[in-house]
């Protein structure tokens, strides 16, 4: 008798319908919320300014909004102008053969000159602006060489890109 009872207790249940129904309505709710959030943070215009991998921008609490300018990126291994590699660096240092008498990199001077020719402005007009994305560990000697090259080619206004520090 006890065996019959135990058998009844452990009787296998017939396999029911195990189809899983996807709750599409809940998924639509979640997707709507995510979409609204992303649309809110999406902005047209200056979305092309993003530091490349391996480049850590310095932090600053107070800053202004980014506007379109010529982008100059200084990382440990390379210097790029408008997303085109210009000079290779080793530990933020230029190759001594690359430097001219005034300490500015030759290739960078040529690149600036080509940019200036591309966007030629009438005589006496306001000089160009540069967006500088430099690694926070970059030594001032390298930054100075880059800034001098920019100044020699008429790029006097500089915008230092920083990460908000809040």
């Amino acid at each position, binding site marked *: 008798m006890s065996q019959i009872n135990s058998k009844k207790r452990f009787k296998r249940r017939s396999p029911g319908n195990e189809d899983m129904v996807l709750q*599409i309505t809940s998924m639509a709710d979640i*997707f709507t919320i995510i*979409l609204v959030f992303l649309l809110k943070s999406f902005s047209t215009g200056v979305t092309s300014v993003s530091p490349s991998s391996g480049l850590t921008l310095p932090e600053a609490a*107070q800053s*202004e909004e980014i506007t379109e300018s010529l982008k100059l990126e200084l990382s440990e291994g390379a210097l790029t102008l408008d997303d085109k590699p210009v000079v290779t660096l080793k530990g933020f240092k230029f190759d001594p053969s690359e430097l001219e008498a005034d300490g500015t990199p030759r290739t960078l001077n040529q690149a600036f000159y080509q940019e200036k020719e591309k966007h030629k402005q009438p005589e006496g007009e306001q000089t160009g602006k540069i967006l500088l994305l430099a690694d*926070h560990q970059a030594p001032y*000697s390298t930054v100075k060489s880059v800034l001098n090259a920019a100044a020699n080619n008429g790029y006097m206004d*500089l915008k230092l890109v920083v*990460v908000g520090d809040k």
Partner: protein
Amino acid sequence: MSRGKHHGEQDFELNIASIIDCFTVLITYLLVSASFISLGILEVSIEGPPMAQPNPPPPEPTVNLSVLLGDNGSLTLKASGKERASFDIPAKAGKPDFDGLDAQLKESKIRWPTVDSIKLSATDGSVYQDLVRTVEVIKKEIPSVIIGDQEVE
């Protein structure tokens, strides 16, 4: 024939699966293009090479202020021109004392209220992060910052 429904009533079922497809594509695109870090800029000028100016140069200010950032984190605020002064701000725990610089700039602004630009220079061993922080501190008091070479005395 549907049960319990009035004649003429139209059932309308929303096809959520298509909406989910659209949402998936939109969300994927926005996620790829989204930026999750807030970037800002600090506007400065570069001291350029001297060149012939077609127009007469603007009148020189009474006092010229300059800040020098040293390798060891020291800061020096100098005034030159009609009045001369020098204020050394030693580093704190190996880092530049930005609070000290801020206080010194506030006093300078009271003493020389007409000064609206300042020249910033640094030694070769200084780090870019310190330079940016110095620009940020200076801009709180004096809006125009010009990055240039050290003045030779």
